[in-house]
Each structure stands twice: as structure tokens, then as C-alpha cells.
């Protein structure tokens, strides 16, 4: 079997041992069965068990292994090894804009705080009927491109507006999810949801830079969802 050497520069920081973070040069022999970046990270960890990163499903649905790969956020498990230029070291850093706990593991508290702030649950105060609430296939289709979000934080941590105001700006993931409930015909809290976002920071810090769209590993479009929320605000103002 033909193997090839893959070189990395990996952000390392263990607050228990290191005074400050550093980039570690490390290389590993890969064989043709190593298809994804995550396969190689698992191999690296077998060599050096202190290398720390999150991972679970290895198929792009759990959202654990988001990281900054050669300057762009993505999931290690969906990143093809063949997409890298051979010979050039692959630079891995933790997601930007969030505090680092260790190596590639960031503290996601602020990200989830913003997600929770949009009341990410269906609000319907009618007494629940005995059977399912009805929804037409067309109305259900409005949720496509929204409900698939895996909360990996690739988008939000690629957003300069979030970097500046992580405590005040909801961020693309949170806003995409806000629109997921606004767009749901079963939800009765649309105006309350719009009120909550009508704020110079929570929604309007989005300046359509579109980094979020560029990095989303599920090919979702938070900017479009944000645009729809802004449209609804304009419409109800006139």
C-alpha cells in the first residue's frame, strides 16, 4: 500500500502545562484508507494521546469536530484529505472568537447562550389536539434549509460581527434557528420573536459579510434567513 506523509501545524495549548499557546509541527504517515481529516487526527492522537479535539459521529451530523482548517472553519470529518495541496503543511487552529479550553477545544458557552436566547422551541399555546397539528407540504418546505442546522458553530465563529459583540449579537446560527421557528406555521410567537430581535445588536449587527454561508458544512444559508427576518420587520413597520 502506498503511504504518504502529511505535515501539520497544530495549535497546542494545555493551561495545566503551557505558559502560552504554540503551533506544533507534526507529521503522520497516511495510507489510502485515510480519506478524511478526522481519520488522520485520530491517527495523530494514537501517537500523541495529549492532542485534544472533540469528535463523535464522524459523518457530519453531530457537529462536534468543527475547527479552523487552513484559515477556514469546517468539520474535520467532512474535509477530504485530497483537498489539501500536497507538501504544504495543514494548519489547524481552534474555532476563532471563542475562549480556548485546550488545543482545538473551545468554550462554546457564549455560542449556546445566544442560541438559547432566541427561545429555540415551538411556542403554541392552544391546547394540544389529540392528533398531529396539520401542516401542508408547502408550509413544511419552508423549514428546509433551516432545521438541518447541527450547531457546530462554524458560521457564528467565522462572523466578524460575532467576534466584536459575542455577548450582544445573536450570530448566524442563532438567527437561522430564530427564523426556523418564525417560519413554522405551527408557531404562534412570531411577533414576540420579532420584537425580541428588533435591537441594534441582536439582529442588526449582521452586515451581510456572508462568511457564514461560505463555511456552513451543511450548505445552509444563514444570511438568507437573516434577510427574511429583516424583511418581515420592514413589512410590519409599514
Amino acid at each position, binding site marked *: 500500500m502506498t503511504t504518504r506523509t502529511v505535515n501539520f501545524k497544530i495549535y497546542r495549548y494545555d493551561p495545566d502545562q503551557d505558559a502560552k499557546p504554540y503551533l506544533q509541527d507534526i507529521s503522520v504517515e497516511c495510507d489510502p484508507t485515510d480519506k478524511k481529516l478526522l481519520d488522520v487526527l485520530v491517527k495523530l492522537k*494514537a501517537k500523541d494521546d495529549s492532542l485534544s479535539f472533540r469528535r463523535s459521529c464522524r459523518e457530519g451530523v*453531530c457537529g*462536534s469536530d468543527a475547527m479552523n482548517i487552513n484559515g477556514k472553519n469546517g468539520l474535520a470529518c467532512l474535509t477530504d484529505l485530497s483537498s489539501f495541496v500536497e507538501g504544504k503543511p495543514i494548519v489547524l487552529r481552534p474555532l476563532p472568537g471563542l475562549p480556548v479550553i485546550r488545543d482545538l477545544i473551545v468554550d462554546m458557552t457564549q455560542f449556546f447562550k445566544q442560541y438559547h436566547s432566541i427561545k429555540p*422551541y*415551538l411556542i403554541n399555546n392552544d391546547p394540544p389536539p*389529540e*392528533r398531529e397539528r396539520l*401542516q401542508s407540504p408547502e408550509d*413544511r418546505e419552508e423549514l428546509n434549509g433551516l432545521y438541518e442546522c447541527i450547531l457546530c458553530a462554524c458560521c457564528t465563529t467565522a462572523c466578524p460581527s460575532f467576534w466584536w459583540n459575542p455577548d450582544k449579537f445573536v450570530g448566524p446560527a442563532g438567527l437561522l434557528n430564530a427564523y426556523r421557528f418564525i417560519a*413554522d406555521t405551527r408557531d404562534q410567537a412570531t411577533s414576540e420573536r420579532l420584537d425580541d430581535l428588533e435591537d441594534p445588536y441582536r439582529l442588526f449587527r449582521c452586515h451581510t459579510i456572508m462568511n457564514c454561508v461560505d463555511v456552513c458544512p451543511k450548505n445552509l444559508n444563514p444570511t438568507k434567513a437573516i434577510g427574511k427576518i429583516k424583511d418581515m420587520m420592514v413589512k410590519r413597520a409599514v
Partner: protein
Amino acid sequence: MNVPIRKFDAVIVGAGGAGLRAAIQLSEAGYKTAVLTKVFPTRSHTVAAQGGVAASLGNSEEDHWHWHMYDTVKGSDWLGDQDAIEFMCRKANEVVVELEHYGMPFDRLDNGKIYQRPFGGHMSNFGEKPVRRSCAAADRTGHAMLHAMYQRNVKVNTQFFVEWQALDLIRDAEGDVLGVTAMEMETGEIVMFHAKATIFATGGAGRIYYSSTNAFINTGDGLGMAARAGIPLEDMEFWQFHPTGVAGAGVLITEGVRGEGGILRNSSGERFMERYAPNAKDLASRDVVSRAMVTEINEGRGCGPNKDYVLLDITHLPPETIMKRLPGIHEIALQFAGVDALKEPIPVVPTCHYQMGGIPTNYHGQVVLGADSTPVPGFYAAGECACASVHGANRLGTNSLLDLLVFGKSAGESAVNDLRDSGRHHKPLPQAEIDNSVARVERLNSQKDGADVHETRLAMQRVMQKHAGVFRFNDLLKEGVQKIFAVADDVARTGIKDKSKVFNTARIEALELDNLVEVAKSTMVSAEARKESRGAHVRDDAHDTAETPNGRDDKNWLKHSLWHRDGNRLDYKPVHMKPLSVESIELKKRAY
């Protein structure tokens, strides 16, 4: 040792489907509940379920819970407990409708009702022809479900302890369960969670096998903890090999693909399932399809340069159907098989997928001991870690998501009832048990010349793959028992180089391996002992005769295995053949 103690009414370990469903019951009832989870809840492996959740809603055609019950008993090869199966099938509509009310984005029919698709082994009128029973959100049902239930928990203010690894189940001298010890990953701190009710919802352990559809986190933590605390493990010889894992990668391709019309083909392009299951064909039960595929490959009709996989073909389906009903599969095929499923078939092989056995429970979600199923005070379990037993020797597709809803809710309700009615209080903690748990972690810091965790895990996975696969052989099983205990000796002396307190994933992996190896041992020992073929457990020396249809020996083996870690001992308990309200579904030869 000084371990801080935190007191709760209830502690739930695991925040996948079953844990989240149980948490809703406890939070809504107002009990102080801690949900411990080693990953953020929406990263639990329920997220990867694709095809749907079974319920006889009858939205597209006539259906009945009794038909669903029949299919489930037959699918289980009669090892499932018929009281629990009736309970689950009758509850299905209620829990699926609740989920819809929580906001689950099910696909819809033109009349606005929940979309349903056919699935393997689900038939109308007691096995006549396939029925549309699987309620689906495209091919992302688990993802939509897990998020909807997490969202409901946000609404009812459930308290989560995210990225806490549970360590050991704490029982006192009387055998009562008093909670768990757990480690906060970020700091390495160990805390005793002292509870009046403890619910395990820790999922499966598919990572005992080398090739698995399961996530890295599926390490049988609840089973390891239970086994170490003297709780036996039930029916651990029964592992489901899903017919369609992506060849090489192991990633799951839902049976919903065949539900939507996908076909399995061998190297000559033949639809071979017609020979093995003339009636249900590609929608036969999973064990039947997996064996047919392995037989095709073993007899030289596999595909590819090494003839080691078969093909799943959907190229005859309209592209709109694929992109609407199976968009995730299109994506997975591109990512992990490098094929565009609209134009080319997908290479697939049977891959370890689901653990039918687990911690023994009744249909109330209470953990039970012994032949007479006596509940363990304060202890409940639900979902894949539990064995109610509704799946018996082989689970039907879409019954796992139903299991976690029904029994997650049951376990939560049982805990609520016990907290309210039986005057449960915080009993005094046995300090020695807590000390033992801490010592297990401490050993990893002091171990000299330890066995490498990665290598030891790999050795275990290779033994399981070779000795306890789709087809099983007496000699291989006997040898497998020797080998797995040799691996267990290494697991007892694993060492890690990383000694950091902060988010030490090397330590977590070593602790997970402690749990995995208990599952591996129980599997191999139970499989070696069961001298018949039933459901997913098929031995080459069990022959098809009039008394033993398909090698199934009801006279000697219509019973549940119970593996005890102490003394590596097996005993057995009877299958509940009596349902709650209907006639028993009588034993007969299984054919599709």
C-alpha cells in the same frame, strides 16, 4: 477521599433521545433533576438515525398497533417480551404525536398529516404485505427528533451538566441505587451526584466492533457501570448488523432507501433478495438481509476488485424523490463512497449497528433483577442501553426511535411516581464505593508500563469482528472467549501519557475502554453459550429441522441470557409470552 456531593431528586445519565424524553417528564413534574452528558445533547448519537419512527398512525393506508406488535414479535424471532412489545406498539401514536407537538418537523402528506414510508419487516394484516408505518423527516429523522426534544427541555428548564463523564453507579449494601460518580471533563473534578432516582440512558456500545455505524462516543458506559455494580446484562449475544453501511467507511445508509424503492444487487446485477425473501424482498428484516448479503459475498458474487461488497441501487428512482426524501443519503454517498447516487449504485456491506440486549428492565423502565424481575429500588434505564425486551433477537428498523420515546417516557414517569408516592429519600452514601470509583481514575495516573489504550481497543475490536460477526462458529466463539479475556487483562492495566487535569480526552478514552470491554466480554460469553440460531445470532452448527426451524431451538433456548460480571456467570430467565390484553403470538418459523 474527599469528593464533593451534590444532591438531586433525580439524575439522568445520557442526553440522547431516551435521556431527553425522560428529562421532560421529570422537569415538567417539577423535580430537581441533573442530566449528565459527555457530549452536548444534540451531539448524542440519536442524531444519526435516519429513516423514521414507527407508529400505526395509518396516515397513508390502514394500519393497526396489533399488526405492528405482530411484526415486532416476529422480527424479534420470539425472544421479545410480548407484554413490553404490546405496551410499546400501543403507545406509539401517543409519543409520536407528542413529539409533533414539541415542534418536530415531520415531512407531510398532501392532507397535512405526518408522512409515512415503508420499512423492513413492517407489514399489514399480520405479515401480509409492506405497510407505510415509518414517520419520517426526510432521512434526518433522528436529527430532527433529538433537536426537537432538546428544544423542549430548554423550554421546561432542564438542568444539564454538559461534558461530564459518568464514572460509576453507586449502590449501598442493600443494593439500592443512590446515584453516580462523574467527572467534569474541563477540570477533571470528580463529584458524587446523590439522587433518589437514577436513570440510565447511555446508548449503545457498537464501538466494540472494528466496523460499526456507531459514533466514537458509543462505548456502553451505562452497561459497564451497571456490570461493575453487580447488575447483570441481558441478551448481549444479539447485535444487529445493518445491511447497508458504506463499504470501507461504515457510515449508515438508511433502510428508508429500500423503503423508497432502492434495490440490492450482486456482481451480476441480480436483485438477489428475491431468492432469500420472495415476499418482502429488499424489505425483509435486517438480520435476513445481512445474512443474504454475506452469503452472496462468500459465494463469490460480491462486487468491486476484492468482491467484498454488494451494491445498493437507486438510479431507477426519480431524482426528485431522491432529493426530497433522501437528501442526506445523496450527501453521504458523495462524501463517503465518492459516488453520485442519482447515477451510480452505492457500495454497501453489513455493519455493526445496534445492541438488542442491555440492562434488564420491565416495560415501566425499572431495572429488574432475577428470574422474577424484581425492581432495583431507585434505578431505571431506557433506550439502547436497556433491554425491555422489545427487540429480542433482532430489531425492526424505526423501532429504536420508538423504543427511546416510549421507554424514556416510561422511565421518567416511573421515577416521578416513585419520588411522589414511595417516600424515597437520600439514603446514606457508602464511602467505600465512592473511593473505589476515584481509585479507578487514580490508577490511570500511577500506572507504570501501561497497555496502550488505542492498541488495546483495536485488539478488542478485531477479536469481536472476527469471532462474533454475522455468522458464528463454535470454534471461533470458544477461541474468542479466550482472546477477549486476554484483552480484558490489558484493559485492567492501560496507561496514558497525558496526565493533564484539563479536558483530558486520553483519560476519557481509557475510562470508556473499561466500559467497552465489559460489553465485549458479555457478548462473547453469551454468544458462545447459546447453542441455537435466533434472529441476529446465527451459528453454522444449528440446523434447520422440523423441531428447530431455521436452527431456532425453542425447547431449550426460548429464554433470555443474563451475564454476571462477577464470576463471569450466565443464568437465564423466561421470555414473557403473554401480552397485556391480546392473545399470545404463537411461535412459528420465520419467513419473509
